[in-house]
């Protein structure tokens, strides 16, 4: 028993040390991973998918996170800030109510669209990187932020689709919107890696040119190269060595970041724990 108590104290000290240095690790909360997340003492924050939860029917495990003082970030996928139409006020209310109910410090969405006026895309689609799109996106962002009680962060998406009318690089497009909106940046390193591989630009060059002054936190996830030859950001495979390498480069530039693992399917708890351990080690190696 004494040994166990000492281990717990050591864990608590490690967590406190990490909190002091600013490097924290987290995980995308899914029911299938709940026990694994709770069992780890080093998880400082969790992120939930907004569309899977109702503010007035919150799951007990989430409320227990909030009671324990862990940050819960709300991650939306259906707001479609890149659509031609203004963001839907019902969806904004949904995000706002969730943030209030869970005392969330942050909501996030994507540089993407999921629907047009009449058609539903079903998932995040890339935006044409034009000046007109920047203008529309910034207007939409401001409308959305005005209705939310906490800051709205923006995440880069993975895509193999390139618009023929693109006028600027992905990094220039993201930087321009981040600068005009003042939005916190949710940097998805795996998405960046996927785009570099599929669209032929240098990942390290992209990182060095990216505006990392206001990074809220970082996503990493697994992916795979499928038969079609493209790298798919599946969130179901193990995290590629190149993604770990890219994360390390980001941490060398900004050591005091919050980083979390996203997983959507193939919930292998052993793999999840190995990757969380690796995330911890990586942060320690960069910081010391």
């Amino acid at each position, binding site marked *: 028993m004494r040994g166990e108590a000492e281990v717990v104290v050591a864990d608590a000290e490690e967590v406190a040390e990490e909190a002091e240095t600013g490097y924290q690790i987290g995980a995308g909360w899914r029911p299938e991973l709940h026990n694994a997340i709770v069992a780890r003492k080093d998880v400082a924050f969790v992120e939930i998918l907004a569309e899977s939860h109702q503010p007035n029917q919150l799951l007990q495990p989430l409320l227990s996170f909030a009671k324990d003082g862990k940050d819960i970030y709300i991650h939306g996928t259906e707001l479609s800030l890149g659509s031609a139409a203004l963001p839907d006020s019902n969806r904004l209310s949904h995000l706002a109510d969730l943030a209030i109910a869970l005392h969330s410090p942050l909501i996030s969405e994507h540089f993407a669209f999921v629907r047009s006026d009449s058609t539903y895309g*079903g998932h995040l*689609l890339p935006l044409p990187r034009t000046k007109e799109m920047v203008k529309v996106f910034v207007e939409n962002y401001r409308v959305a932020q005005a209705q939310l009680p906490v800051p709205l962060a923006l995440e880069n998406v993975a895509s193999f689709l390139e618009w023929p009318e693109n006028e600027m690089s992905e990094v220039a497009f993201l930087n321009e919107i981040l600068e005009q909106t003042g939005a916190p940046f949710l940097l998805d390193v795996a998405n960046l890696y996927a785009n570099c591989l599929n669209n032929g630009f240098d990942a390290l060059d992209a990182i060095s040119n990216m505006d990392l002054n206001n990074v809220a936190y970082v996503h990493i996830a697994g992916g795979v190269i499928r038969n079609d030859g493209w790298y798919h950001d599946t969130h179901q495979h193990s995290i590629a060595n190149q993604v770990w390498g890219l994360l390390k480069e980001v941490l060398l530039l900004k050591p005091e970041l919050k980083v979390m693992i996203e997983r959507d399917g193939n919930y292998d708890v052993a793999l999840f724990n190995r990757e969380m351990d690796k995330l911890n080690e990586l942060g320690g190696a960069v910081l010391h």
Partner: protein
Amino acid sequence: MSERNAIGKRQEELLSALYGGGSGAEFDKKRLVSTRNALCRKRLAALERHCPCVAIFLRSSALEIWEKFCSRNPPFEPHGGLIDALRLSKTSDVLFDVASAIELAAISAKWRWDGSKLRKRRFYLTINRSVRLIVFTLPLLGTRVRLM
């Protein structure tokens, strides 16, 4: 407003190329096909979280199903994979297997998009309790009868 109209029109063209069999002029065809397949897989994965049997049932015909029933813009329905599940539960044009049909019926019966309390649950709970009471009581009654 003209910027919004132009962007909306182009996004419509892309979605029509992805789901409606549009030509998708100017887009790289290989990338379009890969994007379409990736979207289908991601929607299936989202659906699988709520209705695993339906996802397995649709695996080979998912694209066709999304095109027919799930590509029209929905009204406010906040839940990712549940949007498709609820829509599929309302269509009578697809002949599902029994397990899938049960999953969809359950989704349709218990979900409320507006987040209102599930009043029907009380009714179900009462029924459950009654059934449990009967199940536990019957053997006891049977024993007594045999004893007499």
